[in-house]
């Protein structure tokens, strides 16, 4: 982040405008790419950006797209993502993306233009109190009132966004501040007396945790996004393999532990595997690692792993004992804590426990019946088989998101990117666009439903303009599938406003100027995936016409307990307009 670059000779050496300082500060921070959208209040900043070759600017088609792109870039790279937008509507359009980044702890810095200081509060043209609006959804935010504070504020913003529990930081830049001049001196270090995140776990707590682990017979590691944020995958692997403790991950934990390893149990929670939820239910020790006991994981918190002792490792003290009381909290960075803890524990004899889990896996695998009409599960599974896990999957929100979590075996960290906490439809396409600037080694695959893709479809133009090699897979069932599933199961099949018309996505691809393919039968799936993967010089759209009425299982209904778990029904069915379709082959998949 702090890598130094040569100062472009075009900039004046003495007094600089705020706009020039802004650009120079980003270069000092090592920012390579900015997703943005110009406007009146930031026209000076855009002027300063005009001749800069160190920073690539991507002109998105909507400010929400810019923020999700910054998130995708941050999630795929581990570096902070940057968005730059104008005041008023430009700023308010970033709100959903910022809230999304806040819920999912994504390090991004959003710069918004603001009207001149003396106009603030006057209902000036394109004025919005974005600092007030985003206060509850940012880790911190700033209004820069003096150009002399600009450089240090930017330094602080990046520091706060990327340290501790990461999160979005917003910096509001009034137009006149950016036009006034001062000397540029970028601070080398940040010192904030009020902010010192605690990263080392407390030794006493570590000892207590080690003692609990030594005594346990049926331990489970429950791993969340914190393991990926702290780049702790290798440490997690050595810890789990040394202690022989089986691993289940949250939606955001996917990829932190390889799902082709025998200790892996895949995802837990509402749509987690039957065996991971069952293992958590019967475990005697639950070790939460960078996870926050979210309601989609726990269901009824009273009954969640009720018999188990609980250890909770998290860098955010407020995450501890927020939803579920734990026996041994350890505040600290997951990587550092796991490294230390690893040295303090001996291998456990979990042979019987692992044997039991193995049996559960055999009896209750993830499964579906494959027929002529395409099942979403099959598409995801095929992507996994073809890429062998060497791909970045960026899912949207809904049924396809759960199947993308279930039917792809994640092996590497930062290969599964999704909107988990806020559940933002429209996330996938712009986030995939951002991710593709961060990672060139793996294909970038955006997976959306027909609903979500239409929420930020405008970013197609951005992808085409900048030749972004993103594979846009649209799983089109003609419904807002997850809502329809709930209406089917809990609202007497009253399908209220969930059927949805979509354009011809292949023609749309053509209109935007990129290739488009479609598969309507199962036997066409593999072919179109291969065709899409062969496209290297820009985006490609693939539309899969899938079974309209299909349900995600297993399922623990919201707020309920393990006892209410619905496994994949034996008469696993998929209906088209209410008519049963012929199902042929039973396909199963087991994590680990």
């Amino acid at each position, binding site marked *: 982040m702090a890598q130094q670059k040569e100062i472009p000779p075009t900039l004046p050496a003495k007094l600089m405008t705020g706009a020039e300082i802004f650009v120079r500060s980003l270069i000092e921070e090592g920012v390579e790419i900015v997703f943005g959208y110009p406007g009146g209040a930031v026209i000076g900043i855009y002027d300063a950006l005009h001749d800069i070759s160190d920073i690539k600017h991507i002109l998105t088609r909507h400010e929400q797209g810019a923020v999700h792109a910054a998130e995708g870039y941050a999630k795929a790279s581990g570096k902070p993502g940057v968005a730059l937008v104008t005041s008023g509507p430009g700023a308010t359009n970033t709100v959903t993306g910022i809230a999304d980044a806040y819920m999912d702890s994504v390090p991004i810095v959003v710069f918004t233009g603001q009207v001149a200081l003396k106009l603030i509060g006057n209902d000036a043209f394109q004025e919005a109190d974005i*600092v*007030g609006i985003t*206060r*509850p959804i940012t*880790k*911190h*935010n700033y*209004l820069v*009132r003096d150009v002399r504070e600009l450089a240090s504020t930017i330094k602080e913003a990046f520091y*706060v966004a990327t340290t501790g529990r990461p999160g979005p930081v917003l910096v509001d830049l009034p137009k006149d501040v950016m036009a006034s001049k001062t000397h540029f001196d970028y601070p080398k270090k940040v010192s*904030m*007396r*009020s*902010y010192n995140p605690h990263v080392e776990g407390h030794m006493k707590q570590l000892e207590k945790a080690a003692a609990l682990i030594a005594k346990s017979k049926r331990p489970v590691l429950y791993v969340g996004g914190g393991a990926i944020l702290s780049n702790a995958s290798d440490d997690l692997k050595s810890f789990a393999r040394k202690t022989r403790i089986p691993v289940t991950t949250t939606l955001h934990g996917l990829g932190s532990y390889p799902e082709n390893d025998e200790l892996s149990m895949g995802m837990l929670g509402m749509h987690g595997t039957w065996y991971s939820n069952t293992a958590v239910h019967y475990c005697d020790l639950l070790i939460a690692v960078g996870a926050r006991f979210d309601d989609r994981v726990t269901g009824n918190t009273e009954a969640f792993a009720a018999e188990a002792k609980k250890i909770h490792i998290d860098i*955010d*003290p*407020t995450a*501890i*004992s*927020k939803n579920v*009381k734990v026996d041994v909290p350890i505040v600290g960075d997951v990587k550092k804590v796991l490294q230390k803890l690893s040295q303090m524990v001996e291998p456990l004899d979990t042979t019987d426990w692992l044997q039991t889990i193995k049996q559960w896996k055999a009896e209750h695998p993830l499964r579906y019946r494959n027929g002529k009409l395409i099942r979403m599960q099959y598409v995801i599974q095929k992507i996994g088989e073809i890429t062998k896990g060497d791909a970045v999957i960026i899912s949207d929100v809904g049924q396809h998101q759960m199947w993308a979590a279930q039917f792809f075996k994640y092996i590497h960290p930062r290969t599964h990117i999704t909107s988990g906490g806020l559940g933002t439809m429209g996330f996938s396409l712009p986030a995939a666009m951002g991710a593709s600037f961060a990672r060139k080694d793996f294909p970038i695959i955006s997976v959306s439903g027909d609903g979500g893709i239409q929420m930020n479809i405008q970013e197609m133009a951005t992808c085409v303009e900048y030749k972004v090699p993103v594979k846009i897979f649209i799983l089109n069932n003609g419904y807002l599938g997850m809502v329809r599933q709930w209406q089917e199961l809990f609202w007497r099949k009253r399908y209220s406003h969930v059927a949805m018309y979509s354009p011809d996505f292949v023609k749309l691809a053509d209109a935007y100027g990129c290739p488009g393919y479609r598969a309507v039968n199962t036997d066409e799936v593999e072919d179109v995936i291969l065709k899409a993967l062969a496209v290297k010089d820009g985006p490609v759209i693939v539309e899969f016409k899938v079974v309209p009425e299909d349900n995600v299982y297993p399922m623990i209904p919201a707020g309920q307990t393990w006892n209410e778990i619905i496994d994949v029904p034996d008469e696993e069915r998929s209906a088209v307009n209410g008519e049963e379709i012929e199902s042929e082959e039973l396909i199963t998949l087991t994590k680990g």
Partner: protein
Amino acid sequence: MTTMAIISEKETTAADVQSRKHTISLLVENKFGAFNRIAGLFSAKGYNIDSLTVGPTEDDSVSRMTIVTRGDDGVIEQIIKQLNKLIDTLKVTDLTYESFVERDLALIKVQTTAETRPEIMQIVEIFRAKIIDISPKTATIEAVGSQQKIDAIIKMLKPFVIKEMARTGRVALKREFQGEVD
């Protein structure tokens, strides 16, 4: 930052009775928006505020807030953690389990007549309060003390009809000697 205060008088529910009143003292950076962050935290998370005061300290760059809130142990633990999490927060102390001094100030404008004035003056004297403004029909009383003392004088003055009242809410500091003095 100017001095600000929030005091709310709410009906007590059964849940409130179980939960204890806590006095939390916090030092925050005296920066634009710091007060809003803290007030916003309480509303966003649904925590109760009985009173909240803000004012300058001996250090210009730091403000002290005194928050009187209520909740069970879990809620109070979360409040303290959440306050600590705010970037502008320097120090959070729950004074409840310590020995501390506290003051609340009230200005109370009471309706008076020639008949009631002596009795009101007597009450003022008992509570070591002061009359700071007087007119033929009213007297404005300044009362300083613990919250209970202020509550008590208000109760005593109520029958005379309180026309207007302003109250600062509790400010508090930890006692230097926590019990033992050698």
